[in-house]
């Protein structure tokens, strides 16, 4: 199996953490996980080092719809609604592939 076969890669998740009650969830970065339960667990290990009272949201990166006006003239591709371009965002999971 090719090492760069991206269907074998653990999907990418974006992680949002609220460090304590009263604050907003803040985007921290991303991580790879096979499913939601592990994504949550690993986010706790990686992004909070298990601080008490943290609330964590994990979202598959491909599921985020983004628009970023920024500088309208510098906007790369107005029709591109993904949070960023990633080789795996358009790969369908095998389960769906067979349906």
């Amino acid at each position, binding site marked *: 199996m090719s090492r760069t076969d991206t269907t074998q890669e*653990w999907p990418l998740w974006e992680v949002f953490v609220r460090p304590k009650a009263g604050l907003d969830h803040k985007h921290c970065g991303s*991580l*790879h996980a*096979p499913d939601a339960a592990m994504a949550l*667990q*690993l986010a706790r290990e990686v992004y909070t*080092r298990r601080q008490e009272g943290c609330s964590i949201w994990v979202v598959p990166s491909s599921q985020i719809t983004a628009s970023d006006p920024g500088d309208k003239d510098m906007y790369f591709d107005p029709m591109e609604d993904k949070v960023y371009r990633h080789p795996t965002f358009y790969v369908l999971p095998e389960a769906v592939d067979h349906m």
Partner: protein
Amino acid sequence: MTSTMTSPSTTATPPRPAVAAGLAAGVSGASRGPGRSVTLSGSREARWVLRLADTCLIHAQRLSEWCGHGPILEEDIALTNLSLDLLGQARALLSHAGQLDGQGLDEDQLAFLRDERDYFNLTLVEQPLRRSSAHAPGGDFADVQVRNLLLAVWLKLHWQALASSSDAELAAIAGKAVKEARYHVEHAAQWVVRLGDGTEESAARAKAALERAWPYTNELFVDDELDAHAAATGLGPQRSALREAWLAAVSAVLTEATLAVPAASKFVSTGSRGVHSEHMGFILAEMQHLQRAFPGGVW
């Protein structure tokens, strides 16, 4: 860029009292000088606590072999977190055991300067986990998560029981550790399920790992006079009292993982009585080396 280092003229580091006292006590505690073995006083309470302390210590030691070698970066970080938790638990228990022992031995003297027969960890935690040892091959990731599961459930039951220990310090240690143990159980269970109910290869490896570990689990539940004494004084639970809950919790995970509970074995390991497997000598040689090679060293 200005140096962020502290300069000795502003924050001098005085000789550390714990080390000085430890060295002095070590001499009076029937040891033969710095770097030489320390011997225990014979306190039954200390010995009972050392079973837990040494189990956490040696398991942390084995787990830390995986640092930098995990199957994916995220899991490498998670495994190191587990190792750090266990090390923290070991340190708290070792310090407390030193107090119970009554000779002024500190966590490092106990961790690094006992003879093999004075360590009381379960034999299970000595078994190879990543690197080969003696004539045995190394373990794989299935061994890691299976062992984590079996131990984490056992430890969690201990911490829960120790909440009502007659020893207030032990109860406090347990109160902190039980929160960590919940994560350990959850993490291990998630992995055992994914390996058992993943691919054919992972299922085969999980099954093999479980069968390797199972004979060592009898020791988790045998009682001896130390357990009887602990139960009688309210220090802690008899190991046999934990078996049912342990088996129920572990079986539930194995069922979800589509793994069978292995057949019972008649083997009973004896690490908790100080008589270990061939692997313990290698673990201690590596772990103790610097303290032995630099007697009187200050770190």
